[in-house]
């Protein structure tokens, strides 16, 4: 929010939270960031632990709000299901408790290590809140860990777009002339490739895997930023304060860093929020075409793409990742809208 807008903070803040949709966007993104940051605590199990004897367990089955003796609380039963078999529900009820010990995990590159979980079953059974997938893995846990992956895809893809596209746009717009011409032709070429095609060709070239997906989606994003920023820079290049800075003898790099970039910031921020949504959807599309993350990575797009095979028999396998992707993309879109309204110096009431 370092943008030098003409609006005073209280006003834009007021506007930012004014609309109902903006509020929804903030809630969705806040939840998403929270889950991504604390995935192993929120997830009751390891995202990759399988049980081939509990495949396609449907969600919410065997759950009740009263215990064997009528106690209130969340109580669950053991569920087993083989691929072609009936759902088998155990007799005994086990209580779900908050703050339990379970699978050991390490997070944030090993800084956090524990076996502490936000919730879990008190008993030797596994409970699948959102059901189990085709390998008998807990979908809820996979979604929690997947939030972190989706966030990384979005951040890194947008980071690449920003990191390459912004300097390209700034230099191109500021320098003008032949350099500008060359850069713009390059950007033209990239824009003539529809984005997903560019990503497909890149992933096919450099191989599947999360890193390559992030890079491919990032590269597909570059021309958007380059164009956007160049436009803003052109508008700023001949402004009085730039002229003044030049007159003071500041060199071009300094002027670009101090005056041009900060003033071009607000469209970049807005674009980045929308681009996060696009990146996450792109990655899902690549997963669908078999060119995305590698199994058993709990990447949402991949989960959805694989879950589609079971849409007719076990729809929950695809539904939850689908809803997760939709919710996050929606959140970033709403956030983008809200930011635009807030950062727009003129705006409408």
């Amino acid at each position, binding site marked *: 929010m370092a943008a030098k807008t003409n609006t005073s903070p209280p006003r834009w803040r007021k506007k930012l939270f004014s609309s109902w949709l903006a509020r929804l966007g903030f809630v969705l993104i806040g939840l998403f960031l929270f889950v991504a940051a604390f995935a192993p605590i929120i997830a009751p199990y390891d995202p*990759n*632990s*399988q049980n*081939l*004897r509990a*495949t*396609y367990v449907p969600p919410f089955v065997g759950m009740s709000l009263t215990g064997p003796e009528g106690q209130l609380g969340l109580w669950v039963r053991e569920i087993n299901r*083989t*691929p*072609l078999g009936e759902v088998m529900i155990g007799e005994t009820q086990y209580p779900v408790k908050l703050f339990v010990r379970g699978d050991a995990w390490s997070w944030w590159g090993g800084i956090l290590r524990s076996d502490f979980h936000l919730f879990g079953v008190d008993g030797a059974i596994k409970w699948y809140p959102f059901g189990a997938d*085709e*390998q008998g893995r807990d979908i809820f846990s996979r979604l929690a860990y997947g939030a972190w992956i989706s966030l990384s895809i979005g951040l890194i893809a947008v980071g690449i777009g920003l990191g390459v596209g912004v300097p390209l746009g700034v230099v191109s717009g500021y320098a003008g002339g032949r350099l500008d011409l060359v850069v713009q032709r390059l950007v033209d070429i990239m824009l003539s490739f529809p984005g997903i095609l560019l990503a497909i060709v890149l992933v*096919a070239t450099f*191989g*599947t895997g999360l890193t390559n997906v992030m890079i491919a989606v990032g590269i597909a994003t570059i021309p958007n930023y380059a164009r956007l920023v160049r436009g803003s820079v052109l508008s700023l290049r001949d402004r009085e304060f730039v002229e003044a800075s030049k007159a003071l003898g500041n060199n071009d790099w300094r002027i670009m860093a101090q005056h041009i970039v900060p003033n071009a910031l607000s469209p970049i921020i807005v674009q980045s929020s929308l681009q996060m949504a696009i990146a996450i959807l792109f990655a899902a599309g690549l997963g669908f075409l*078999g*060119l995305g993350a*590698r*199994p*058993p990575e709990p990447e949402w797009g991949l989960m959805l793409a694989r879950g*589609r*095979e*079971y*849409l*007719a*028999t*076990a729809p929950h396998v695809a539904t939850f990742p689908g809803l997760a992707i939709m919710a996050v993309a929606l959140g970033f879109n709403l956030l983008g809208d809200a930011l635009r309204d807030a950062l727009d110096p003129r705006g409408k009431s």
Partner: protein
Amino acid sequence: MKKQFVLLAGAVVAVTALGASLVTAQQRTFVIAQGTDPTSLDAPLATDSPSATVVSHISETLFEYTADGRTVPKLVESFRFSSDRKVLTMKLRSGIKFHDGTDLNAQAVKFNLERLVDPALASSFAFLLRGRVTSIEAVDNLTVRMTMPTPFAPVLAHLTHSSTSIQSPAAIRKSGATYRDNPVGTGPFSFERWQKGQAVELAKNPDYWGTKANVDKMRFLAVPEATTRMALVETGQAQVAVRVPPQDVARLDANANIDVIRTPSVRTIFLYFNQTKAPFNNVLVRRAMNHAINKSDIVNFVLGGFGRASDAPISPGVFGYTNIGGYEYNPELAKRLLRQAGLPNGFNMVLSSPNGRYLQDIRVTEAIQSQLRAVGINATINTLEWGAYLAASNQPKDKNDFQVAMLGWGAVTGDADYGLYGLFHTSQQAPNGFNRGFYSNPQLDKILDQARISTDPKARQSMYKTAMQVIRNDAPWVMLHSEQQVTALRKEITGVVVHPTERVLGMDARFR
């Protein structure tokens, strides 16, 4: 009045006839939903099963590999080998015509077989005959003589392969490069049209030399998405859908209009060890991993029971198969073997797997990863898209960085030679053949070489048994399972044959 009545009656008859013809035309088109569009309808260039399926309806081979595993004459009426087994003389059936009206004769056979090995055509299947046949002569109008440099026992099996189909030389000469779009053969169906990317249509050949087809038209649809393919059968827009995913079987079975049938396939799925990499150069480690993997769990729970845990490197139904006994699932034994190998704490490895090439391949790999973890082996999965995968696994020894990888192999000629030689013989190490783990055992090489030229089927059978026992002992593979083809058929159609070589055949199909 009378006149009017006649007119009316005439109209009624005409309308009924028209209606009936419309209805029958509608009903008599037999629709098969396949996974992909054929790549080519020119037999030597038809490399995948969808292409081979369509080609088999249009064109025929000299010999036939029947669905129950026998090799029988087809276009050939009789044949005999010379006493040194180097000359094969075949007498063709007389009176067979191609769909364009030209005759099937010895010249046509010579033309087709020579075309198959012609470098200008660059057929992937040229190896079936290249180097194995010195000359092909048309002795008289219906007699073909094939001379081989050395006896080659599986030659008849090779002549059952759809790429050796006999197609009309006149049509090939006339159409040139576009022949692939207008194939002409002798089969029970003739080519009608090909809507690229969607469907191929065939029409019944009314002048077929053998038992004529019952359905008037066949239509092969290309539908890559499994859900969509199943939906076509469920809604009756297709009568057959191939490759039913295991999880859809119960649902389709419950549908009163649909039967789900399972047919064995000659394709076996396995993991191979790259023996140039430690610790996989140690037979104890290879055996330990064989004991660590629970094949029956994979077949039952991942494949939904639609497969067969392997007990030999080739599947039953292939000539030369014997049950040599697999490795039993025994994680304790696996751990003990690892301790013996000096790896009591297990090790880290990379498990390479295709994704979407074989039935549920990636799910099988994930299950294996989880089973290996139980004995202390920490496997990271490496999936590559098929083109890259094939290239990586086919690198020569010094450049190959696969450690353990999944592959599948179909003995499509129905002979153990095809199922073993290319995979285990030292001369077939990548990039020369399909021995991609660089396995080598001179004793085995000798047996496979002998079995190839032996003339006695019984002796060959026993040689292959010995060969497979050597293989079992050396454990160059984890034998996983052979696939089963799961096919959904609507009840209104009968007589459909699902061939072990992954072709759905509609020659004898009939609407109820």
